[in-house]
């Protein structure tokens, strides 16, 4: 049984984090729960670790365990991944499920938080463009 490791992240918005993850997995692969749910190991056994955002093992890789993001008391999410899966490759992010994977999620996460905040401030997104890897978003309001 591969031990889970926990990586701290700076993500705080559950829906924005789930939406960012959906860029890198097939449709329906990213599950969101109101309460933390048990992760499942590669043999189908329930593991002690719990998470509110879960990608089931069949969508992670062959012989994989679930991966998940769990809310901490300080409001941030931690990333749960098994030691085995830290060496598994994710085609969407072009990384293994390690710190590099977390880094790849940061841009799409920030895009969603930025656009959500623009809407809350009464701005609409007038343009969104990616130029040489950098996202440019313009919000306009009256």
């Amino acid at each position, binding site marked *: 049984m591969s031990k889970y490791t926990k990586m701290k992240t700076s993500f*705080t918005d559950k829906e924005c984090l789930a939406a960012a993850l959906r860029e890198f997995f097939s449709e329906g692969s990213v599950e969101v729960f109101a309460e933390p749910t048990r992760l499942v190991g590669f043999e189908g056994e329930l593991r002690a670790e719990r998470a509110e955002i879960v990608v089931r093992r069949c969508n992670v890789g062959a012989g994989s365990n679930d991966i998940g993001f769990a809310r901490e008391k300080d409001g941030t999410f931690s990333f749960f991944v098994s030691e085995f899966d830290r060496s598994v490759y994710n085609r969407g992010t072009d990384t293994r499920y390690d710190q590099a994977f977390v880094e790849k999620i940061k841009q799409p996460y*920030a895009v969603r938080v*930025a656009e959500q905040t623009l809407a809350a*401030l009464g701005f609409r997104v007038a343009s969104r463009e990616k130029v040489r890897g950098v996202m440019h978003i313009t919000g306009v309001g009256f």
Partner: protein
Amino acid sequence: MMRRIEITIDEHGVVSFTIRGVKGQGCADIANKLKAALAGEVLEEKHTSEYYERPQAVGKRVGQ
């Protein structure tokens, strides 16, 4: 006047933003809300000259 917020987010999730068409405290309020929402992600905040301007008074004097 149209208010405008230009946001850039690099590949590492580092955010910078510029606010245009909003003067003084209104600009600072928007900047603070953006920074709060993007907790830990904001690297750079650019102030345009409008930031340092005082908002125009609204309303007019009527009669003597």
